[in-house]
């Protein structure tokens, strides 16, 4: 739907200033975002390949593809650690957020561009530690590094946890940068309740990043000291308490679940409105539910430990609060669906992923209710039901939102369109493959199949087999995506400023945007969701229902 007359800008952030050095030392949030994007896609690919290998092993009950349980254990540990720490956590905020946030605020850059570059290089250093760990024997503890297993195994736990420790700083600095940016760099007239909801999502995420990540850092530091010096915080042989580790770990890692999902919810709030061409429903409820989730998320860590022997009272409180944190997510879903009511809905790739998100995230959310109910959790904890649940939330939720975002902003980032045809096929394969792979795992889990098993009883074979086949469909979907996205860079149609007819500011500048984002500081002439009074026609011109009243 881009205009026939669209031209590709001569100078834009990709070629101005030119040269490799200008990229490596860039302070431009768009370039930093893009470098993050390449880095995380690299790790997503590795994590994805590991996942495919794991599913290959699980095709049959006995151990066959991997030589031993040890290799299998290393593979699932690496899959988890890479996907969580090197892919999902930085994916939306650091890659897409970095690119889009200043554009959405009408700003030239983030508040601290140097710090932004520093967080990228800290990320790189952290990932080098992780790669070093992989090369020197890998870890086999699971991505959760539970003690006393992690203090007694012979694998390279220290380099991996050091890596995650370093990555944490990257995350903290990005969060800090974003908070200050939102507070200080909003263009004139852009008040808090006019902000795009993606900005609210990033803001809420940044709060968690800043408050929770230090706890992870301390925990991992203690773990490292425990292994190297034997200080005896967690090791029962030295008078420590291994369950204390679990408390510390989940105090970060539960909020981290929301570090992963909140920015995704922010993207969905954008795409559902843009592609329904309809004012977002319940703006304030969506915005405040993000903050609500951010705060309550600090109080539910114990729901990962219902069978760890914690007291019944603690279990009760954690169960109660867990249900409480589910409500705001529900509110968001209802608001999104209502946004579509009486819309003018178009089904381009970002919308396809948005719909996938709604479908999969709902399943992820509902299965969370099973796990929040104490007595049911006792049965389901540490089975494939949990594996399926968090894949529905993390992959069905965050990754689908990420893909919606990638497809949504792709024309802005590169100035070119991808093939809608292949995008639709890939979205379909990913949706079907995902459900084949993971829906079966709910049944496996509720039938009692424990997670992290290298071999399993024959009775679980049919479901495991089906799940493995699903992973191939899923993999194929991603392969196609890689092809048409790369292809679009060379052959893609020129996008023009605003191919989707969206109203937020990143679409008012050229695609790709110039080095300093805007030729002139954008003006607040209408709300970002005012599809009832403004529309962008096929020629990229704004048409007002009535004459605009300047605000």
């Amino acid at each position, binding site marked *: 739907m881009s205009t026939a007359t669209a031209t590709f800008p001569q100078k834009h952030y990709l070629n101005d200033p030119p040269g490799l050095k200008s990229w490596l030392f860039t302070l431009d949030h768009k370039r930093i975002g893009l470098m993050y994007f390449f880095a995380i896609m690299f790790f997503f690919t590795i994590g994805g390949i590991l996942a495919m290998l794991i599913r290959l092993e699980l095709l049959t009950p006995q151990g066959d593809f991997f030589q*031993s*349980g040890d290799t299998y*254990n290393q593979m699932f540990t690496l899959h988890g650690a890479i996907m969580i720490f090197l892919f999902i956590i930085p994916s939306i905020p650091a890659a897409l957020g970095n690119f889009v946030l200043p554009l959405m605020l009408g700003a030239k850059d983030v508040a601290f561009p140097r710090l932004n570059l520093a967080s990228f290089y800290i990320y790189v250093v952290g990932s080098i530690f992780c790669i070093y760990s992989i090369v020197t024997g890998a870890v086999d*503890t699971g991505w959760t590094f*539970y003690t*006393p*297993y992690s203090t*007694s195994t012979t694998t390279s736990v220290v380099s991996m946890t050091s890596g995650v420790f370093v990555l944490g700083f990257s995350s903290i600095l990005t969060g800090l940068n974003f908070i200050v940016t939102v507070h200080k760099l909003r263009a004139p007239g852009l008040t808090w309740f006019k902000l795009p909801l993606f900005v609210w999502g990033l803001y809420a995420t940044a709060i968690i990043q800043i408050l929770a990540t230090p706890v992870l850092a301390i925990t991992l530091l203690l773990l490292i000291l425990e292994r190297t010096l034997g200080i005896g915080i967690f090791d*029962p042989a030295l008078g420590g308490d*291994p369950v204390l580790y679990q408390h510390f770990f989940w105090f970060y890692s539960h909020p981290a679940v929301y570090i992963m999902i909140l920015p995704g919810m922010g993207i969905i709030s954008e795409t559902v409105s843009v592609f*329904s*061409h309809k*004012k977002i*429903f*319940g*703006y304030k409820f969506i915005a405040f539910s993000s903050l609500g989730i951010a705060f309550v998320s600090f109080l539910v860590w114990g729901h990962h430990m219902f*069978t*760890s*022997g914690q007291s019944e009272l603690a279990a*009760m409180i954690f*169960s109660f609060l867990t*249900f409480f944190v*589910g409500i705001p997510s*529900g*509110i968001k879903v*209802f608001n999104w*669906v209502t946004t579509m*009511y*009486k*819309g*003018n*809905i178009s*089904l381009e790739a970002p919308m396809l992923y948005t*719909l996938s998100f709604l*479908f999969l995230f*709902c399943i992820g959310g*509902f*299965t969370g*209710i*099973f796990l*929040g*109910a*104490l*007595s*049911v959790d*006792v049965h389901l*904890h*540490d089975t494939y039901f949990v594996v399926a649940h968090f894949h529905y939330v993390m992959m069905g939720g965050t990754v689908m939102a990420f893909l919606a975002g990638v497809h949504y902003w792709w024309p802005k980032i590169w100035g070119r369109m991808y093939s809608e045809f292949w995008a639709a096929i890939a979205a379909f394969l990913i949706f079907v493959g995902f459900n084949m792979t993971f829906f079966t795992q709910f*049944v496996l889990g509720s*039938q*009692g199949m*424990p*997670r*992290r098993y*290298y071999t*399993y009883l024959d009775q679980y074979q049919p479901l495991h087999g089906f799940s493995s086949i699903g992973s191939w469909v899923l993999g194929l979907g991603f392969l196609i995506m890689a092809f048409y996205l790369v292809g679009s860079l060379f052959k893609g149609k020129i996008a023009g400023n605003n191919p989707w007819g969206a109203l937020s500011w990143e679409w008012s500048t050229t695609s790709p945007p110039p080095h300093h984002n805007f030729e002139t500081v954008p003006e607040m002439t209408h709300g970002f969701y005012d*599809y009832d*009074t403004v*529309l962008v026609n*096929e020629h990229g011109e704004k048409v007002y229902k009535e004459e605009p009243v300047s605000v």
Partner: protein
Amino acid sequence: MGNGGSFWLPPASSTVAGEVDSIFYFVYYASVVLFILVIGLTAFFVFRYRRRGGTRQFTSGFSHSNVMEVTWTVIPTILVFVIFFWGFNGFLKMHVAPKDALQIKVTGQKWFWSFDYPSGASSVNEIVAPVNKPVELLMSSKDVIHSFYVPDFRVKMDVLPNRYTKAWFEATETGEYNLFCTEYCGTKHSEMIGKVKILSELDYQKWLEAADFDTTIALHEMGERLYKSKACVTCHSIDGTPMNGPSFKGIWGKTEHFADGSSLTIDENYIRESILNPNAKVVAGFQPIMPTYQGILKDRHIDAIIAYLKTLK
């Protein structure tokens, strides 16, 4: 109570399983209804309001309704409260074992389970219990964290190295059930699986007796087993080091000196007396702290221990 299992859940073969399953299905049906509502509406909207002809249209400005917001906040809140209380209620039942429960000690270690019964019998990777009788598990680990899980009983509890945890079940049907370790514990985590064998009360007693005294192995081997399972090992070494009690190394036929100044050559009768009435003669240099095994060890057990002691040159 018991059933053959369904698409979603394995057979329910314990007294708590029924309630867990009821909540499971309650949440399940509530979710299915809500899911169909949400996704159904989404699909309907996509179909009904899709863009025709490719040109963007102005749309309604309908973007706010407190009534709707309150409705979809309050109804789910009520629902989850019900689920919360129900789940908590079931959880409490799982955590409080009936007073008359039979106690079995469970030990997890890389990568097997061992079980000790009140009678002194023990078993490895197969826990045996009577049907229709509450069984309480007192659990601990010798190394890392493990977790004791019997899907058909809906029972799961972590097994920790630094303290005891408890779980209990009452099986409603005889038969064999899977036992899994569900806390990741390393190389052979997936092989740390065993069986729960539920027998009728009568069969259970028979099994206990057999486990109590295994006639298929040599007498001195049975003695060695008792030496370990009856905790003699905690006070008596077999390598010469004196612990709370004298070492058993080279005990046979040696001359023993007692606190009252007397002495004798160790023989079958002395051993028997030491086990059943340990304070009759107290070995010089030791405190009279050995418990009597009167009523715990039967004659044939003592015979087996004697046979074992004879082998400790």
